[in-house]
């Protein structure tokens, strides 16, 4: 049973295709049952940056083609014309790919932490699906994914790959946390209701900011954003009055000139802010007059400051890559040693069954001719023949396991099957051409 992954990611497909490849939660069980119809094991991982099908296939399965067709159909192509958007990795490369994905090494933002949770969700969703051939996740994919989780955890705990903010919005949150510590219970004012404001607000909400006041030149848009995030909308003219109530201000308007000036700040806070005031200005051109930063207890950051943090952190993450790759490499070796061993198990079992059948047949024939033997003598002969068979088969069994471990399993398995006339049914997972 070979392993394979068929997928499309941010490395191979543009966003307009990726969003169509993506399978909704409700679509996954049907897709898994289709992929597992011929006895394959399957897991579908679908995020905004990748859609991948992991397969452990029975011999002769066309599961890879089936997966290709499934994905191609989602963008209205046939498998051939959509091939340029896909990658297919098999066996060791498939395992390595999953381990790199789970560790965040293949992510658009190196080391981003969400992917491990998404891989876990994909695995958990597949574990709940069972078809006519039983569960769609069997021994091979179970072990593959458990190893991936372990490697992902090790990379995060043993390297600095996940340290520091790696996007502008998370850098904004990181800065706010360096001032306030925990953001739970703090209040935010959002000026402008654009996409960046919303993304930053989302990050702040994730950190516990519960009160958000949204001001926008178009009140309806402010109300829409406030409703979506459980905040309060105010008219644009009122925003200065809200300043004394908040700890964090996010500015992202399209105004061609500063909307928050020293004069306006002093008007709202004549004695200066009583608590630290963190102002994140992500607008271009800037929304906040530079001199605002000189006010006591005011911490002002613009898009360049945030980008500097992101660049520094990504540089440090890249420096951790060799250590992370080494953990993945070790994980691939360990997994493949186990998986290759799994591949020879049916052949070893068949070999031992064949030996036992021959021993039983020969012993019965001999005992019929030696009817005068006492039960004790018969037991002694039984033990002798059993020992002989075990000794004869010990070396081939050990060599088979060794060959599987060092990548020569397929050739040796074929030879053993040929020499001992073993049944073709003895072929196992990973045992392919």
């Amino acid at each position, binding site marked *: 049973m070979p392993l394979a992954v068929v997928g499309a990611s941010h490395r191979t497909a543009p966003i307009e295709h990726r969003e169509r490849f993506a399978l909704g939660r409700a679509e996954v069980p049907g897709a898994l049952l289709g992929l597992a119809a011929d006895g394959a094991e399957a897991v579908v991982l679908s995020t905004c940056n990748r859609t991948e099908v992991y397969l452990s296939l029975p011999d002769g399965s066309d599961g890879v083609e089936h997966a290709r067709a499934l994905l191609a159909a989602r963008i209205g192509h046939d498998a051939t014309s959509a091939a340029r958007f896909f990658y297919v990795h098999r066996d060791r490369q498939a395992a390595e790919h999953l381990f790199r994905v789970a560790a965040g090494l293949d992510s658009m933002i190196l080391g981003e932490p969400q992917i491990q949770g998404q891989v876990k969700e994909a695995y958990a969703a597949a574990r709940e699906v069972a078809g006519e051939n039983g569960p769609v996740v069997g021994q091979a994919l179970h072990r593959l994914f458990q190893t991936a989780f372990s490697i992902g955890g090790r990379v995060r705990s043993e390297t600095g790959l996940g340290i520091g903010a790696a996007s502008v919005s998370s850098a904004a949150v990181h800065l706010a946390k360096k001032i306030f510590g925990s953001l739970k219970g703090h209040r935010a004012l959002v000026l402008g209701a654009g996409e960046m404001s919303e993304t930053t607000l989302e990050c702040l909400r994730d950190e516990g900011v519960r009160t958000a006041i949204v001001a926008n030149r178009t009140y309806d848009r402010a109300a829409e954003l406030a409703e979506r995030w459980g905040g309060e909308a105010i008219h644009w003219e009122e925003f200065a009055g809200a300043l004394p109530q908040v700890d964090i201000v996010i500015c992202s308007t399209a105004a061609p000139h500063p909307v928050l000036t020293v004069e306006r700040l002093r008007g709202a806070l004549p004695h*200066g802010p009583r608590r630290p005031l963190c102002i994140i200005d992500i607008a271009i051109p800037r929304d906040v007059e530079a001199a605002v930063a000189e006010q006591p207890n005011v911490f002002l950051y613009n898009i360049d*400051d945030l980008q500097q943090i992101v660049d520094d952190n990504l540089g440090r993450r890249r420096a951790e890559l060799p250590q992370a790759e080494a953990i993945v490499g070790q994980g691939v070796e360990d997994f493949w040693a186990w998986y290759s061993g799994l591949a020879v198990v049916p052949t070893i079992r068949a070999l031992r069954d064949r030996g036992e059948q021959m021993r039983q047949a020969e012993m019965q024939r001999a005992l019929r001719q030696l009817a005068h033997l006492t039960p004790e003598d018969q037991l002694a002969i039984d033990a002798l023949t059993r020992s002989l068979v075990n000794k004869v088969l010990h070396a081939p069994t050990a060599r088979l396991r060794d060959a599987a471990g060092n990548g020569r399993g397929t050739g040796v398995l074929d030879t053993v099957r040929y020499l001992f006339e073993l049944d073709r049914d003895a072929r196992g997972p990973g045992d392919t051409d």
Partner: protein
Amino acid sequence: MELTQTLHVVALAFYALAAALLGVSLARSARRLPAAATACLAGGVAAHGAALAAFTARYGELPLVGLGPSLSVLALLVALGSLLLATLGRTGPLGLVLVPVAAALAAVAEVAGMRPAAQEMAFRGPWFVLHVVLAMAGYAGLTVAFAAGLMYLLQFRQLKGKRFGAVFRFFPPLDTLDRIGRRALMVGLPFLAVSLLLGWAWSERFGFDMQAGNPKVVWGVITLGVFVAALAARAGQGAARAWRGALVSVVGFAVVVAAYVLLRAAESAGAGFL
């Protein structure tokens, strides 16, 4: 080398190693080094505690009298405070200041000699022990407030100046440093105040001269004044409340140390101030 001294030197070595590991953590953002520094600090505290226990067993009294033993106890309390902040408070980076302070105090104690002072034993009852231990706890609190204040001022400067380097990454958030500094003062002040009252009562009972010019009285009052000033600076909700409080903690600590050095230098030899 006797057991007390051996254990004391081992503790000192652990402190030095912990300080070095924290320094490297600051420079390189290495992930596991802070945990290793905490482990070293724990080793140092254990060895230090054992050294003071060995002292007690050897001389039959607690190490509370004489420059060496007193400073050693203070060093242990500061190191213990740093260890608690690193483990329970998850603010190990404060050890960047606290551990070198503890190491320096332990080193001075070692140089001064870990021997009891040749003073009358009659006064060393439970009240005296309580007086000294509370005073040491108060000074340890002031040291923690100093460390938090110093780091606050540095982190504030980084954040205001948009310098996102090692200090920005490694130091705790401003609010955390402010909270630790304030709590250290609030815990340390009653300790020191009760200690001074006990000292006064104790001196009255034994007829000691504790007039206004006595170095112990002067130093105690200066320290008490620093505590009050640092807490007063944090009072209210003005724009620079936390920054002012941090500054007063740092300057106040420097004043207390300078006052000790000056008073000791001005004192006639053998007068027994600390």
